[in-house]
């Protein structure tokens, strides 16, 4: 469905060149749910703007449905639904009018527009507000309307750029519900960007992006497995910290910690360890806490980018 080859995008800003996307390549299968995960400024929106034919790449190429986005943007646009990171509704028009204008722009017949907008507005629970101007809507309602609008013309590919950012937990859940429903019904391909790790966890495959590059790409479970058997968290009295660190270094060669405070250490389980119990016995008997957790995508991200800061803000 999507093939991205050596895609690069540079911006010139105030005479300075910023490489927002730095030669990334990936493919998304038809019907797949693919997620781009990365912190702010990673280049996700830029990538999506190129895929949705708003921007042209500096170099590299993008094929959607085997059509080059540079050669025939028209043909592609018809099959893509885009939900942008920032709002893109006309707030002086009503919900129904926003739907209707979208349908018109995509060449839908009047009867089809009427039927579709009713169906989708009901799906996102906005049918009773269909005649209200969008400026009177809350953030969550606007987002729901944008999702309904993006589905209006039956896209084969739905692109969502941080669709749940700034929403309350209920709205986030609802939005996921609608997307999954729509996907179940007609096997849409979904490309989603997010910096919420739980959201990427539901994807078929995840590409982790950082500073314009893809640093890892796999299924969420494989990405987590790559971290080894688990993540160890130790609670240590601050005055015994050095002693424990020394033991870890001499016996297990542990030098890097994914989290380090004055009383906790967090690091991947060393591969030489056969069982957590044996590992615990080999440590100095000063610990006040010990736990082994399965790695999360957060841990994957931190181990890949060396960034101490969690991206799940």
């Amino acid at each position: 469905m999507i093939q991205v080859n050596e895609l690069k995008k540079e911006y010139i800003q105030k005479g300075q060149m910023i490489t927002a996307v730095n030669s990334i390549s990936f493919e998304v299968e038809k019907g797949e749910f693919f997620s781009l995960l990365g912190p702010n400024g990673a280049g996700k929106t830029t990538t999506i703007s190129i895929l949705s034919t708003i921007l042209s790449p500096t170099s590299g190429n993008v094929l959607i449905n085997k059509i080059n986005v540079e050669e025939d943007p028209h043909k592609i646009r018809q099959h893509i639904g885009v939900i942008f990171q920032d709002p893109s509704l006309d707030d002086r028009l009503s919900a129904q009018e926003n739907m209707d204008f979208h349908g018109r722009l995509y060449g839908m017949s009047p009867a089809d527009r009427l039927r579709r907008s009713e169906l989708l507005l009901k799906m996102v629970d906005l049918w009773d507000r269909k005649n209200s101007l969008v400026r009177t809507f809350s953030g969550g309602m606007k987002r729901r309307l944008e999702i309904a609008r993006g589905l209006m013309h039956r896209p084969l590919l739905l692109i969502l750029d941080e669709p749940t950012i700034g929403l309350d937990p209920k709205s986030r859940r609802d939005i996921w519900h609608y997307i999954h429903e729509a996907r179940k019904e007609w096997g849409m391909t979904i490309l989603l960007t997010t910096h919420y790790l739980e959201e990427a966890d539901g994807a078929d495959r995840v590409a982790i992006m950082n500073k314009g590059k893809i640093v890892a790409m796999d299924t969420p479970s494989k990405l987590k497995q790559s971290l080894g058997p688990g993540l160890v968290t130790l609670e240590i009295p601050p005055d015994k910290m050095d002693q424990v660190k020394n033991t870890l270094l001499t016996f297990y060669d542990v030098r890097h910690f994914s989290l380090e405070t004055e009383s906790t250490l967090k690091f991947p389980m060393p591969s030489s360890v056969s069982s957590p119990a044996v590992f615990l016995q080999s440590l100095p008997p000063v610990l006040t806490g010990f736990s082994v957790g399965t790695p999360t995508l957060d841990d994957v991200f931190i181990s890949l980018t060396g960034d101490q800061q969690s991206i799940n803000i």
Partner: protein
Amino acid sequence: MINEPDQSRLILDLLSEPEQSMTSYAHLRRDLRGIYTLWLRDVIRLWRDRVRLIGSFIQPILFLFVLGGGLKGRVLSQGSPSNYQVFIFPGIILMSILFTSSFAGMAVVWDREMGFLKEVLVAPISRTAVVIGKILGGASNSLIQGLFLLALAPFLKVFPSVGQILMMFGVMVIVSLSQTAMGIALSARMSSSQGFMVLMNFIVLPIYFLSGAMFPLTHLPIWLSVLSQMDPLTYGVDLMRGILLGTFYYSIYRDILIIMFFGILMLYISVRQFQRD
């Protein structure tokens, strides 16, 4: 949440419309529909904002009846027109058209700030269609302004014939289109409405004052004469004054040709500016 009957309808719905193949004729039809859609949106929004529409009539009315009325019948200097109020009438109509047309560019900047422009740019219509749709929407607004002011003619004891009214209408159409094209061209790369305001003041006010809307083109200092000849609006003023008052300074053909040329140039620039980067 989705209830059962809706789900089955969603499936049926998918099967109901087979994918059509796109010929170049289909592209053209899609573009025409896109142009119509964008125009329709502008008209709906204009209608919804009636208060602003009515408010926008106030400025030209003040110019016409207060400034024009105050100066009426006074001999200002050698060569001034005998009835200044009637003399500036075409100029006031064009002022209104010029300001409204340029304002169409502001609407584009607002669309960009609001984010709606992206929705239009990912839609399956060409950028040329987007630009033409915006020009037609803005020009319709200008035309309404112009026609309203023309309807005030009897208050100035000017009674145009049907032929004159039709010719005035034609002039308003081409001037509205070409000035709106300028407004859109200016808006293409502007991301803030404040920035656009500043740009407007730098461009629109000189265009207005140099056009001879408020003074005759005879006996001008040379620098003013040269600048006024470079101003596209000068020829619109000349056309309207010629039609309504019977005195052309240039020729009717020259006026029409220059306005159309300017409009097409601006359309070309707008389309170029709206391409992806």
